[in-house]
């Protein structure tokens, strides 16, 4: 691959049952591009957690995924409420998710920590009341 490829997705914030479709699509595309299964797994887990977060907390958003020779870069941007305390949000087990979200198997305070765990770089830019952009990189 000499050029950078970019895929962009709009995430619907209303439909929990469809959350994960974008991550699934990226997983398939990376497989077709011949990316290693280790890297695909990391991207899939991190992006899926991010996608779920967008649906739970931010009523959706956009995800763009760029693939270059040396990394897969994911940029997840939403216009949700923002993250008031990033240090707290990064602690395993800390969650502000509603009880109904927990009954769906998420909201255990593992989302952001998982995103960090499975990526090589992660940056959170958040403004209260305006939204959050998370940039994650998995090296190839």
């Amino acid at each position, binding site marked *: 691959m000499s050029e950078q490829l970019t895929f962009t997705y709009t995430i619907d914030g209303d439909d929990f049952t469809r959350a994960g479709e974008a991550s699934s699509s990226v997983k398939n595309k990376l497989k077709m591009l011949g990316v290693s299964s280790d890297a695909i797994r990391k991207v899939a887990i991190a992006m899926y957690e991010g996608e779920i977060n967008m649906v739970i907390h931010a009523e959706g958003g956009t995800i763009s995924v760029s693939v270059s020779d040396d990394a897969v870069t994911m940029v997840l941007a939403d216009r949700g409420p923002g993250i008031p305390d990033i240090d707290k949000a990064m602690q395993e087990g800390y969650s502000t998710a509603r009880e109904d979200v927990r009954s769906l198997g998420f909201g255990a305070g*593992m989302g952001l920590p998982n995103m960090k765990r499975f990526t090589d770089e992660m940056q959170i830019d958040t403004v209260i009341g305006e939204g959050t952009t998370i940039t994650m990189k998995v090296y190839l």
Partner: protein
Amino acid sequence: MTIREMKEALDAKFLYGEELADLDAQFVFSADMMSDVLAYCGKCSVLITGLCNPQVVRTAEMLDIVCIIFVRGKLPDENMLALARGKSIAVLATDHYMFTTCGILYEHGLRGGA
């Protein structure tokens, strides 16, 4: 242990994937919290859960799980099964509780991945 052998040991039924019955697995993860599955599943290729919604299948897909075993008599709906079919993930259902399900498979030599 093959998926077919798991089905027999657990008195389970195939909801999808009889054609995948000869796939072999060594490591199993069990949880109802999908974020924990994503965090800790590691090399496991079978997921035991009592949670029953489409995100279970999505989670399994992200982790290349080959078989989901629903416990406590939980039955996925047609949408979930269609998703599993699309990803070639076998789906078993057993009436056993999660502890018993894990115990039976452990006795048959399966282990946790971590």
